[in-house]
Each structure stands twice: as C-alpha cells, then as structure tokens.
C-alpha cells in the first residue's frame, strides 16, 4: 500500500487541510483517520482483505456489477477527483477506497484469485496481465498496491506498459498505478526522468487535448514541475523520504527554497519509521551534502549558482543539448562536416561538464564528467544524423547524495600520463631492445615526456643534451663524430622491413578510415582497447571510479517500437533462459526521449556485416577464418557456435516479430562471432514503404549457412534443433510476450 499516501495523513487528518475530505461527510472523515492509523502499520494485510472482498463479488456475479459496488465506485471517484491534482493525497484516496471496502464487508472468504495473488508464483508479469485485463476496480487497486512488493527492477521492465495503461486506459487503472509511480519518482531521479520521457512520448500520438491526454501530461508536468520539488529536492539531496513539511503542497515548495538541509530536520522524527523500501537517512548526510555544495561553490564560483538546481534540470539539459546537436547535424550535407561539427559541438558541451547528469542506459549510478569529443562518430544514415558518443562517468554509490565531481582541466592528463606507460604503446619494445641489444639505450623515451617545471620553462637549460637522461645517450650522440672509437652496431635492412610488416600484421585487424563511413573504424576497435586509450587520454582517467559508457543519440526516429522490440527480446531471452534453450540474443537498452528522438545503448565490439564486407572484401566465412583462425581452432569453433546460437535466436525473433528491412547494415557481428540484429523500425505488419513484398520469415543467407558449416554440417542441424526448441519454449510462454505488445497497442499507432 502506498507509503506516500500514508505519510501525510497522520498529520493531515487533524491539520488545516481537511477540506476535500470534508466534502464527503463526517463518516468518511472518521473512516479515513481510523483506516489510516491502522494502515500505516498493517498495510498489505488491509489491502488484501479489501481485495479479497471485492474479488469474491466478482466471482459471484461474474460480469454483472452489483449496484452497491457501482455506487461505491462512483463515490470513490467523487472522492478522488479533487485530489488528482494533489499528488500527496493520492495515496490517501486509495487508502480511503480500500478502507471503506474493508469496512463494508469485513467477513471475507478466501477466493481462488486471491490465493493466486498471494501465492509465490504471482509475479509481475501476471500482475500486469491482471491489471490490464481485469475490469474490476478492486482487482486493479489491489494490484496497484501489490506493485510496491515487487522488486524495482522487475517493475521497471514493465514501466512502458504501466504508463501506457495509465495514459490510455480508464481511470481505475490509472488510479491504481499512480501512487506507485509517484512513490518511485520521489525515490529515484532516474525513474522520474524515465517516466517523464515515456509519458511524453506515449501521449504524443493522441489527438489534441482529450481528457485522457491531459491526464498523462498532467502527471508528466507534475514530475517535471516544481510542485514535486519539495519531496524531490529532498530525495535528491538526501534520498530520504520526508513528508512535506507544510500542510499543503503549494506552500511546501517555499520550505524547500529556504534552508533545505535544516528546515525539515524536525519533521524527520515525525515520519513513520516503517518504510517498505527506503530507510531514512540521518541528518549527517544532509549536512555533508550541503557543505559539499558550498565547497563546490567555493572551488568553482563561476560554475555554481547559489541555489540548488532542480534535480531533473541538469539531466534534461544534457539530453536536450545532445538532441539539438543531432538536429543541427542533420542539416549538414556531408559525413565529414557532420563529424567535424559533432566534435566541436561536443567539445563545447564539455565545458559544462561534470554535471549532475547521467546516462539512463547505464546500469549503475554515476555522474557524467566528460565527453571525449574526438572519439565521437556519426553513424551511417541517409538523411538523419544518428551519432555515437562515448561518455566518461564516475561511478558513485548514490547519485543523489554524491557530489558532482570537480572539474579537471583537459591538460591535466600530462601529470597522470607518465613515461612508464609508454612502452605499452608499442608492442615491440622488448623485441626491439632485444634485437639491438648492444645499444640498450637507443630508445630514450624520457626527454620529450619529461614534465618540466614551470620554473624550468623560464630558465631554459643551456646544455645541449640535458634532456636526455643518461650519460650513455649523450655519449652515443657524440659517437657519431668519433665512430672509430666505438664498436659500430650493424642492423639488417631486411629486419627493419620485416618488423614493419609484422607489426602491421599483428595489430588486430582494424578498418580503414573511410570518410563515407566514419563509424566503421571506431566500432571495430576492441572495446577494452578503446577504454584503455580513452582512459589514458582523459584527465579523469586516474580516478578509480572512472568508467566509460557509450550511447547512440538518434534524432528524427521514433524509438517506441525499438523499445517494444527490446522488451520482447528481453522477455524471449528470459523465457529461453528459463527453459534452458541455449539461444543467444542481445537486447540493447532504449531510452525514448520523445516521439522522434531517443538514445540507444550501442552493442560493443560489433560492426555491421555490411561494413565487414566493404572493408575486408571477404566472404563471411573467410572473415571468420581471418578473425578467429582456422577451422579447427578453439577460437573458430566457439565463434561458430556463438554464431549458430545467435543466428537461431534472431531468426526466431525475426519470425515472431516479423522484423523487416533486414539488410546487412542492420545485422551486426560481434568479436565473439555472435550476430546481433538492430533496427526494429519495421516489425509486426509494418514494412518499408517501397519494400512491401518482403515475405521471407527470416533472413538466412547461404553465407550464414557457410559459416555454420554448410547444409549438411552438424552445426546446421544444431541450428535447426535450436530453432525448434526455442519456438516451443516461446509458444509455451506466449502470454508473457503477447501481453507486452497488447498493452502497448492501447491508444498508439503501433501496428495492430
């Protein structure tokens, strides 16, 4: 049951704000106080009882709604109506609802449905399903309460469904869902952002300002607005849930403005200690983060304004600037110009970092500290300009309480990068020294890398070879003139030439730089290699919490279908895992920003088959042989197995989702041999306009079969077997997949 609802009531009941409740008459008021007092302690139990009673009715009457119930629903609605605007009381409304029911029919019997709901088997998937299918407000309310009991990650997966139901289905469903959403928004700024973005994107298909439309946007506005700020600001700073200190939500915003740290300390004690999900934090944390804010102000006065910025504002601005970069890029004609512009725009963006911003696609809490602008690439697209950026972040334990890292100027890398790291750059250091063993000091790396002091810069060193560190190298310089005195060292020209070709051969096959396809090189570079390289070049690289993330920013594309595809893929993945079918698919995370923009988590270490063919000019099989070694090598065999498992997985996905537009540019191959399908822009019954006749169920070219070892090979049989197993497993859990799609059909223009 909604904690958020329960919190304010102990104080609010007798407080100055009984007005909306007063409308319902004295009885209801007394019911509220009674119910709430109890609820705060035995929350789920009450809810269950309430549900139980309603469910029984459902069972008895099955379809025909009893008069009393309808009347009650009506009453409840009246009761809710004025409170919709005041999110703080939302929970209270629900409380009232359930409490009333409980009172009305206290003697409840066990029902089968309730037994199901209470059983361990009842999972979030079922909850969503019942929430969607049940037309009974009581069931919906019960499930709305039950949402609090599920793990956050589980519910998060169904967030698009929940919000879509909230927007597009009737009010009972919405009312059931809302407390949970509000509760979670208070807790997590990331969740707030995702909700706000999704609400915006999912409502965008609707006709202008229908009643329901305004309901979705209303919640969105609520999340983004200052109205939520009191609790959100606290949540952001301390991550502790304080009840709004003042009686009305409007006045509480002023409380947040004035001394957020101290003002509410007194109320901490008042807030009920029973928290289902969140422990309250001590005041110490508050003072720490407050002082840290001050500290940051002191260290960087230009960057910090005196007022605490809204918790979502930096992130939204970050996203917004990425999107507007994408929009501006789209106006440029050539890839080259796009890339240049991208790099320079990002370098300007860098000036504003670090900031209280994060990448929603990441799996851990962090602050964005830098965008290594020179690494960004424009991806292949005809008229739009999706681009891939790498983002340096510092991991933190808690986004809200952690301080935004201090800015380190770009050039600070000099001190972190030292001469010792250098030999790693060239692989042949040892080898060369070995071959030149007579002159061990030929490779005197220090002089250009020595970090000389500022003092030294002024007073230049007069000696000629002062910078070369040791005597031997000085001696060796002289030795040119006095050669007879030393034993000359001879080297074979052939060795030099050989080393050159060997070194080039040994470097992992990289792609040529192609102005028409700037992303190929960047994507081909092994991820670990890239991380190491960027870390070396970053002023933040020395920090232990440094991480590199990457993200694709897409403008002008509707990613809602991609999100749907991600969910389906994820569901299939878990089904196959549950059924122990070794199919491999890689669902990549999607962040829908609006109906025509979003972010995608890139698949690392993967390039498209199109790029492979263009760059290597080999058949797929030959490329496998080149990358992984000969047929019987361990590495080739495992790559082949990966290929088969992923190919079977994606063939099923393509079949089930009717994925169209499967050209080689949309199929990636990763370094381990997996194929990964991307771009689910045309799924179910939609297809590219000019290619409506795409009939094949999935794409399996003879090249793919070749990699599997031909039509008669064992691997191909394995492939067929996997397909069958996978299909059976998917059929078995069909509901879980269908449900995802079904709910999203509501009110959207997704293909039916």
């Amino acid at each position, binding site marked *: 049951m909604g904690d958020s609802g329960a919190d304010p009531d102990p104080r609010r009941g007798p407080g100055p704000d009984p007005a909306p409740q007063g409308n319902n008459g004295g009885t209801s008021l007394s019911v509220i106080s009674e119910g709430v007092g109890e609820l705060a302690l035995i929350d789920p139990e009450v809810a269950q009882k309430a549900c139980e009673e309603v469910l029984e009715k459902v069972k008895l009457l099955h379809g025909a709604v009893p008069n009393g119930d309808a009347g009650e629903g009506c009453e409840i609605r009246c009761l809710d109506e004025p409170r919709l605007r005041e999110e703080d009381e939302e929970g209270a409304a629900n409380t009232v609802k359930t409490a009333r029911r409980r009172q009305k029919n206290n003697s409840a019997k066990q029902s089968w449905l309730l037994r199901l709901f209470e059983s361990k088997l009842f999972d979030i998937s079922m909850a969503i399903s019942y929430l969607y299918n049940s037309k009974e407000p009581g069931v919906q309310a019960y499930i709305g309460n039950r949402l609090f009991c599920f793990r956050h990650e589980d519910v998060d997966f169904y967030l698009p469904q929940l919000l879509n139901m909230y927007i597009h289905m009737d009010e009972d469903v919405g009312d059931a869902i809302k407390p949970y959403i509000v509760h979670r928004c208070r807790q997590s700024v990331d969740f707030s952002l995702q909700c706000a973005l999704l609400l915006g994107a999912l409502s965008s298909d609707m006709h202008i300002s229908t009643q329901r439309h305004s309901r979705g946007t209303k919640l969105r506005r609520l999340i983004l607005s200052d109205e939520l700020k009191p609790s959100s600001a606290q949540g952001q700073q301390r991550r502790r849930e304080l009840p709004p200190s003042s009686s009305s939500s409007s006045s509480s915003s002023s409380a947040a403005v004035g001394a957020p740290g101290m003002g509410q300390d007194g109320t901490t004690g008042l807030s009920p200690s029973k928290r289902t999900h969140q422990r309250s934090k001590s005041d110490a944390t508050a003072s720490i983060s407050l002082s840290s804010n001050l500290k940051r102000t002191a260290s960087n006065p230009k960057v*910090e304004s005196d007022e605490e*910025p809204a918790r979502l504002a930096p992130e939204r601005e970050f996203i917004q*600037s990425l999107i507007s970069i994408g929009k501006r890029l789209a106006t440029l004609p050539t890839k080259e110009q796009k890339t240049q512009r991208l790099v320079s725009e990002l370098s300007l963006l860098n000036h*504003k970092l670090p900031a209280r911003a994060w990448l929603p696609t990441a799996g851990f809490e962090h602050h964005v500290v830098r965008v290594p602008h020179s690494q960004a690439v424009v991806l292949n697209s005809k008229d739009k300009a999706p681009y891939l950026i790498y983002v340096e972040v510092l991991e933190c334990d808690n986004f809200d309480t952690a301080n935004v890292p201090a800015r380190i100027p770009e050039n600070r890398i000099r001190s972190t990068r030292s001469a010792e790291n250098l030999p790693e750059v060239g692989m042949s250091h040892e080898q060369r020294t070995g071959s030149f063993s007579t002159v061990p000091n030929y490779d005197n790396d220090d002089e*250009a890398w020595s970090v000389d002091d500022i003092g030294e810069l002024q007073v*230049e060193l007069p000696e000629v070879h002062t910078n070369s560190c040791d005597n031997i190298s000085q001696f060796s310089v002289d030795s040119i003139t006095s050669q007879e005195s030393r034993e000359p060292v001879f080297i074979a020209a052939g060795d*030099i030439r050989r*080393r050159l070709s060997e070194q080039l051969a040994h470097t992992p096959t990289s792609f040529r730089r192609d102005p028409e396809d700037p992303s190929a090189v960047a994507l081909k570079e092994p991820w670990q290699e890239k991380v190491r390289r960027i870390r070396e070049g970053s002023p933040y690289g020395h920090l232990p919490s440094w991480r590199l993330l990457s993200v694709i920013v897409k403008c002008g594309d509707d990613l809602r279908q991609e999100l749907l595809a991600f969910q389906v893929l994820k569901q299939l993945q878990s089904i196959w895992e549950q059924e122990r079918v070794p199919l491999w698919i890689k669902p990549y995370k999607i962040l829908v920003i609006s109906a025509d923009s979003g972010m995608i988590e890139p698949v690392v270490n993967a390039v498209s088959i199109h790029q492979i063919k263009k760059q290597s000019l080999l058949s797929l099989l030959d490329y496998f042989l080149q990358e992984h070694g000969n047929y019987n090598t361990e590495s080739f065999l495992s790559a082949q197995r990966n290929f088969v498992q992923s190919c079977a997985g994606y063939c099923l996905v393509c079949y089930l989702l009717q994925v169209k537009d499967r050209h080689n540019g949309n199929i990636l191959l990763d370094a381990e041999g997996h194929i990964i399908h991307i771009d689910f822009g045309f799924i179910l019954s939609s297809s590219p306009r000019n290619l409506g006749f795409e009939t094949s169920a999935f794409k399996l070219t003879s090249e793919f079969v070749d990699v599997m070892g031909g039509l008669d090979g064992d691997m191909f049989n394995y492939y067929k077997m996997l397909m069958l197993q996978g299909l059976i497993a998917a059929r078995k859990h069909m509901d879980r997949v269908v449900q995802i799609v079904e709910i999203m059909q509501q009110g959207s223009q997704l293909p039916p």
Partner: protein
Amino acid sequence: MAQTEKKGGLLRKSSASKKPLKEKVVLMYDEIFTTEDPSKCNPRFWEELFLMKVNLEYLEGKLEALDGEELMKIKDNINCLFQHCIQALGEEHPIRVVNALQTLCALIRGVHQKNKSTSGFDIINMLVGFDKAELCMKNLMESLDSLLCAEGSESLKSLCLKLLLCLVTVTDNISQNTILEYVMINSIFEAILQILSSPLSRREHGYDAVVLLALLVNYRKYESVNPYIVKLSIVDDEATLNGMGLVIAQALSEYNRQYKDKEEEHQTGFFSALTNMVGSMFIADADEKISVQTNEAILLALYEAVHLNRNFITVLAQSHPEMGLMTTPTSPIPMTPVTPLGTTPPSSDVISSAELPLDADVQTSNLLITFLKYSSIVMQDTKDEHRLHSGKLCLIILTCIAEDQYANAFLHDDNMNFRVNLHRMPMRHRKKAADKNLPCRPLVCAVLDLMVEFIVTHMMKEFPMDLYVRCIQIVHKLLCYQKKCRVRLHYTWRELWSALINLLKFLMSNETVLLAKHNIFTLALMVVNLFNMFITYGDTFLPTPSSYDELYYEIIRMHQNFDNLYSMVLRLSTNAGQWKEPASKVTHALVNIRAIINHFNPKIESYAAVNHISQLSEDQVLEVVRSNYDTLTLKLQDGLDQYERYSEQHKEAAFFKELVRSISINVRKNLAFNTLSQELLLKEFSTIS
C-alpha cells in the same frame, strides 16, 4: 569655482563662440607651464582642470617644445599635475576620470618624446618626483586596476588600457622603461585576466589586453624576475585561457581574411601576368606583393602563451567557428559556456546558434588551424624584415608546439581530422592546388605540409638559413614523437623526401655563394639525419611496408644528389679548412644512404641487363628493392631521435629584443590621438551628467 564656471557659461552664450571655452583649458595649461604654483591664485584650479575637455595636441606640443632644462624648472608643477591626475582617477564623476586619464597619456608621452636620451630615472623624477614616486605610482596602478575590474563604462576601461599601453611603449626598448618597475611591483595581471575571461569585456578590450600582456611579459625578461612571466605561466583557468585564445584567433583570422580579399582582388591581375611572365622565378616577384600589415604583437602574445603556459596548449585545439566568416560584428562570439548544466532553462539550447552558426559552409576551426593558415601566408614571402620576423616567430611557435606532448597528442589524433587550406605560393612550375578537394586529415599533416611548402618555396639567393634549420627541426621533432608513440601517420612522405632531396641539391649547386654566409653543413646534416631516421626507425612509424620500399626507391632514384653531397663533404673534410669538422659529420651521417645506393644500384643494373630493359619502371625497381633487403647491412646511428629542446634565453634573446622593439614602436604609432579622443566618451557621459 562655481562662479568662474557660471561666467564661462555666460560668456559662451553671449559671445556665441566655442573659443573662450577652448581657450580656458589652454590657459590653464599655460598656467601649469609657469614656475608659479597655479593653485596659488585659484585654490580650485585642479578641480576645475579636470572638468575641462583635454586638449591633447596642445599639451603634448607644449611639453615637446620645452627643452630639458626648461622642463626641470617647471618640474614641480608637472609633478603636481601628475599627482592630481592620479587623484582624479578616484573621482566619482566619469568626466574627471576620463580627463585625468587623457592628461596622463599626454603627459607621459610628451615628457618622453622630449627626453629620449635621458635615463628612465630622470623621467620618473620629471613626472612624479623621486620622493613621491613609489606612492604615486602605487596609487595610479591601483586606480587603474579598480577601473579595469569595476563594472563601469567600457570606454573608460578602454582608455585605461590605452594609458597602460602608452606607458609601456614610450621607450623603444621596453627594458629601459624604468617606470615599468612600478607596474611590475603593482601588478595589474589579474585585471588583464579578468578582461579576457568575461565575454563582453573581451570583445571590447581583448586585443589591447593581450598586446599589453605580451609587452609586459617582455620587460627585462632575461635579467630579472618578471612577475608577469611567473603569473602567466601558472594560469589554469580555462575560461581565461580560452578567452585569450579567442582574441588571438580572431586577430589572426582577421588577417587571413584580409589577405584573402586582397588576393581575390589581385587574382585577375595574376593570371594576365602569368601569361607574360617568363624567366622570373616567382610570379609574386614581378607583381606587386599582396601585403597586409602583419601583426607581430598578437603573434608575440601567442608565442608567450604557448611558451610559458602549458595549459594554453589545450586552447590551441579548442574548436571555434571560423571567425573570418562571421561578418556581423554585432553578434560577437559568445563566451565559451561556463554555466553549469541546469542553471539555464532546459528549453533553450545549450549551445546557442550564435555560437556555432548553422551555416554549412562554415568549417569549424580552431586556433591552431587559424595559426597554420596565418603562417602559410606570412611565410610565403620573407624578404621584408617584418615578415621575416613574423615567419621566424611562427616557426618558433611551431617548434614549441612540436615539442609539447599534449599538442602532439592532438596533432596526431586520428579522430580529429580537419581540412586546412594552406596558402600556397603561386609558382611557375605548378598550378595552384584546388582548395576544395583536400582530404580531411589529422592536423599534423597540415603542419608537415606547411614545412614541405616552406622547403620548396624558399630556395633562393637570399637563403633564409635560420628558418630552414627551424623548419627541419620541427619535422624532426614530429618524427621523434611518432617514433616514440608508434604513430603510423598516413601521410604522403614522398613529398617530404623529394623536398628534402631538392634542398640538398640546392645547397650543393649554390655551395660557393652559401658557404660565404652560412654553415650549410648543419642543415645538410639535419636533412641527412632525417633520412637516417626514416631508414633506421621506419618500422616504428611508417604506415605501410611499401612506404619503406618507396623510401629506398626515392633514395636510389635521386642517388646522384647524395653522391654529389658525399664527394663535396669528403673534399672539404679532407682539406684542413674551416669546414673540416662539420663536413666530416655529414660524411659519417651519409654512411647508410651510401650503403643503400651502393647495394641496390648494381642489383638494379643487373636486373636491367638480365631482363634487357633499358629503363626500369618504378614497380620493377621496387621489386628489386624488395627482394634484396636481406643482404643489406646498415649501421645503427645513435642520437637520431634526440633533439635539443627549444631554449629562448640562450639563443633567441636578441631576436626577441628586436621584435619587442619593433612591436613597441608599432603600438605607439597606432595609439593615435583619435583613439584617445573624447568624442565618443563625451557622448557617453553627457547623458549621465
């Protein structure tokens, strides 16, 4: 005073002429130029003086007209005037401040112009008086500092900077300007930084501030501890450094733009001239030079920033839109954003369109690109002394850049590709390369291109030896970085090789002429060692095995040059002459190249004989080269990847002294009266008062 003022006002109205008012200030000046204390008869004399419009010409002329002794007589009054000027700087009313500033300018200039020969101490005595000098100057600097930092009128600030520039440039040799000691003690460095860090004031005064800073840094650079040097070298505020970079970039790109405009003007002339041109080496020689006044002051500022402040290196790569193309002066380049995310409403774009104009033609640029373009223009013609200085300074800056690790990192960054349109001198034997089809490459390619361009275009009788040495050094330093970091740059090395070989050829064919003036062997040694670097360490930085083959091909193809060089240095090293030592160094350095030539030439000849081909194609030669590597032994030469780091104090002091002198003169010349004139100021303040 009120009475006199009223009187003046009445007079003006009644007699309807401006003259009496104008005369008033002149009369007051005349009073100062007597031995009497002007405040004796009029106790409010000084207060009144600063309400009068300054007559700069008269005041300065009057000062100049007096000779030393006469001046000494009225020293007390001058001191008094000076002190009262300083007092007036603290006044609330801007008119007084403006007048005081202008009077100070005139005073300082007038006294100096008269007394060029006298020592700095006398001048201090003349202006301020020894006894009060310290306090007075302290007050002056403090007032200027607070005026510059205050949120006051922009034209007032501008005038302050003008006064400072005036003070700094009164002597030709800045180090002899003793009065600057007080500027050293009472630093205004922070005020200059503040101007550079805020976008508004930078736009207005950035140029003056940067020039002032560059000059101050050069005051007694080598003799004493100059606080400006120390302070400049430790600045790490990004906004300030970027601001400085933007000012410099703006000035340089303005020059580039002007040059381009002029060039286009001349274009038609060129092509008609082209047809008539026979026999002259450079077309530009015959035609009138497209010359735009070079801006050494800005270049000096860039040099000091790059040389002294290692944080400034990052600014070089900082992107900014091509400024020359941003025509509207009303929409100046906004400050690089420093506000944190979240302080501006999210609805507005973070990067406003003004910052990066949405124009497809505008190529994003950075300071380094602008500088390279500028260098390519300046280095085209080194005959005139100013340009020679500028060209040399450009090369010195590039030397500093080529030695810097961070700079090298972004120069060689494979992900930062730019298209840099260098200006190429139109020459008889080549067409002007079309600008448009340049590939986008890492910036180091542009640097190398610039060096190659310099090498091929300056083989002339007036051989710029010094510049050539610097040029080869830059290439060498870049190669050292590449070798060290295993950077395999995809560059057409062949162009560099053939340019270097042609340079050797030129040195030999003009041996007698050049030897009279220069030690050509140092240059020859450096060139040969560049080749040695490629030969011995090519495996670490050449892009492909075939580029190594090409190197051999090029050496073999041009073997005549190396043979000639060898015979020349051998001849000179065996003679016990002046050049014995340097020449013998070159003979030793040539050992590998000679080994290559002696190894492959017979092989090629026999290949030709066996296959009955008179002239081998390139592919055939390469084939021979490839198949005969293994029998060739090379000698490992040491120290090829060592270089001497750039050092200003010991080698360049004289150059910078001379440069600063010419800059001082130039700045002084440009500090014309009209820039100090009151018209604008009066307009501005008339509304306030």
